[in-house]
Every structure is written in structure tokens, then in C-alpha cells.
């Protein structure tokens, strides 16, 4: 079987290791890189290296950052008394992009998943409890996913945080905006009815 020149092959092989990239897509990407200018290719290589060299976890909230503490933790305009707990930096970004939330965050880096062998000790829970001891937090928002794992994590945190006398809230779950009641499943509808509020 004939193959491409060795440098091309090794680029294809490296790209194939990325999630969701098969050999065909890797081939297309490799040829795109090959056709692009040297400076573009260098910029790509530099960006990859930079992300590995400069990105670390914020020592307070454990979000991904290139400066410690991260810009959110450093921002004096943000409310110090509200803390939103999320599973991942992507969840943090999704909430941040709404522009509605003005408090701070704590990233757990996962959720309790017994079938994957992930217990509370694998998450940034110890660090969260230390923060709650030190900082004057008045409300904790549990914004883990409404999955079995996210739910288990929220239940675990409830047991830990409730005795501290801090107000504890869970993000609402129910019918998505633009959704249709007719096509909603029973469990979502039940949640929506349970979480109804006076208007």
C-alpha cells in the first residue's frame, strides 16, 4: 500500500487522534495546512503549544486560566457572596455567555459517576468546602447537569453545605424556551410543574 510522504503521514496520524476526527477528515485538514502559508501554520503550532504551556487552573475557582487568580475571581465588580457550582469550564462559559449572572464560580471538574469509578474525592469538593469556610458566601447555586451523575453530585453537596447555614439553590429544570409541552417527556413536565412560580 502506497502512502503519503512521511511528514504528511505523521500529521494525518496526529490529527486522527483528536476526538471526532476520522482518517478522511484528518486528510482534508492536513492538506489544508499544507496549502496554507508558513505563517498560518506557525500560528497554529504556536497556539497549540501556548495552550499547553500557559493554561492552568485558577487557584480559587479552578477555571482554566492563563493568569492566577483568573479574571472572574479578580473582578471586584462581581458579587462575592454568590457562588455558582458547575461541572466543567464549558458549563461556566455557557452561564457566563448569558451575561445575567454576576456572582463567582467554582468548577468541580466532573460529577460523581460510580460506574466510571469517579467519587467525590476525585472532584474539587474539598477545595470548595475550604472556600466556603474562608469566604463570606451567602448563597450557593448548584448548577450541575440534570443527569443522574449531576443530580448525585448536587445531592452530595447538599448534604455537605446545608449544615453550614448557607442558602442553597438548584438551577431550575423543565421545558426549554421555544419547546413544546406536547412533545415534552413526563419527567421534564413533572419537574416543570414542581418548579412553577407565581407570576
Amino acid at each position, binding site marked *: 500500500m502506497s502512502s503519503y510522504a512521511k511528514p504528511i503521514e505523521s500529521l494525518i496520524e496526529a490529527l486522527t487522534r483528536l476526538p471526532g476526527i476520522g482518517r478522511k477528515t484528518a486528510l482534508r485538514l492536513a492538506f489544508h495546512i499544507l496549502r496554507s502559508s508558513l505563517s498560518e501554520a506557525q500560528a497554529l503550532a504556536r497556539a497549540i503549544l501556548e495552550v499547553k504551556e500557559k493554561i492552568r487552573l485558577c487557584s480559587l475557582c479552578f477555571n482554566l486560566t492563563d493568569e492566577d487568580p483568573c479574571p472572574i475571581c479578580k473582578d471586584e465588580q462581581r458579587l462575592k457572596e454568590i457562588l455558582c457550582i458547575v461541572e466543567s469550564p464549558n458549563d461556566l462559559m455557557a452561564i457566563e455567555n448569558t451575561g445575567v449572572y454576576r456572582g463567582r464560580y467554582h468548577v468541580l471538574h466532573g460529577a460523581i459517576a*460510580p460506574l466510571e469509578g469517579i467519587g467525590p474525592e476525585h472532584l474539587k469538593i474539598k477545595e470548595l468546602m475550604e472556600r466556603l469556610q474562608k469566604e463570606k458566601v451567602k448563597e450557593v447555586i448548584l448548577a450541575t447537569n440534570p443527569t443522574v451523575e449531576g443530580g448525585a453530585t448536587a445531592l452530595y453537596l447538599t448534604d455537605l453545605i446545608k449544615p453550614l447555614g448557607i442558602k442553597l439553590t438548584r438551577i431550575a429544570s423543565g421545558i426549554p424556551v421555544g419547546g413544546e409541552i406536547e412533545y415534552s417527556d413526563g*419527567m421534564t413536565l413533572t419537574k416543570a410543574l414542581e418548579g412553577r412560580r407565581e407570576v
Partner: protein
Amino acid sequence: MPLFRTEAIVIRSLPYGESDRILTFFTRDFGKLKGVAKGARRSKKRFQNTLSLFTYLRLIFFEREGMGLVRVEGADLLQAFPKIRESLKKIYYGNYSLELINEMAGEREPNREAFELLFSFLSNLESEEPKEEWLRMFEVKVLSLFGYRPHLTRCGLCQKGWKELEGEPSLFFSIEKGSLICSSCSKNYNSLFRLSLGTARLLDEISQGDFRKLERFRFTPQALSESREFLPRFIEHQLGKELKSLKTLKSLYR
């Protein structure tokens, strides 16, 4: 391509790629099945919430030649067990039952009794406050339904039965032998767990009993602590691997 239909319980669910999900089902008619649900993470309408852990559903799938994974075509929700998700203890118990079935069951080997067992275990979890003895009963039943029933009626070496063993100062269970061992034969074995005659009798009766009528079995504190020690270890020995969910489960005993 023919479509197949069967009742199934989701025993594992993992995200795959950008929008798919790889699932393991324990089905009534086909035993354990692994499948892929295309677009399950994006399309809220097609599978709705049917493909999360514990869900009992009517599965519609087709086979793809040369592929180990079936393609999930549809899933109608039959029971979501919402109460299990509201208690950490129930989630831990439920996860353990799913892992045991997943590890014990062979792919495409139907085992209707084991399906009924899992379904009634989850139904009990849904409706009542869980008791630790449920776990022990589930373990014994799973072992016997998949052909690993521990031998508890006589000493595995000298063959002395319950009657003759009554005066023995102490009895043991040998993980390697998978059997009851009397004190005089015990020096021939390592990894022994203390097991009283009462516990051996109880567990043997459970292994042959109907799971839906298990409330009639009563565990003494001694029977509970003895079976808690040896049953999970015996299962891990049979599987040749550690059970991942056991660690989180143990945190409940502390």
C-alpha cells in the same frame, strides 16, 4: 433491514463524539446489548430522556452487519424511576446493581430471570427506603442466576453437611473454592472469610428463592456484616476485576 423490539433497561450510557451516545442495555429477549444512538445528545425530540441510566424502555433497534453495536432506532419510555434520582443512597445502590449485571451478563445471552431481578430491584428502590440487605440478596441472586452460586450447604473439602457442622467452633467461606469450609479444613486455604452456619443457611435459601418474595428473609446484624465482607469480594474474584461502584457504595457504611 429488520427492526427488533424488546424491553430494556439502560445499564450504561456514555457520550460519543459530538452528538451520539453509546449505550449498554440489559434486555428481556436478547440479554446484554450494546448500541449506538445517533444524535441522542442533540435531538431532544427523538429520544427525549429515555436513554439515561436506570430507564426501563421499549427498545427498537436494527443490526448492522459486521458491527458489534446495534443501531438504536427508537425508544419508548416505560418507567424512568424518578425517585431513584432523588436520593444519593438510591443512586449508589442502583449504580451497583447496574454494574453487577453489566459485568456478569454476556452479550446476547438472554437471561429473563436476571432481567426480572434487576427490574424488581429498581422498582423496590423507587418505592421504598433502601435497606442494605437488598444489596446482599441481589448479589446472591445475581451469582446464582449467572452460574456462580456459592456452595453453602457443605464443607467444600471434607463434604460435611450442615448437621455435622453444627458443633464446629468456626466456619469460613473460601473465595478461591467458592464454598463453605469447616475449621479443620480451613488451614488448606488462604483468603478465608468468617461465616456462621446461620448466614450460610440464609444465603443458600435466598439463592434459590423468588426475588419478589424476599421480604420474608431476615438478616441478623451478624449475617449482614458477614455477607457484606465476603460477597462483593467473591464477585470480584469471579470477575477477575474490581467493581468500580463498590467504592462509592462503601462510603455509605461509614
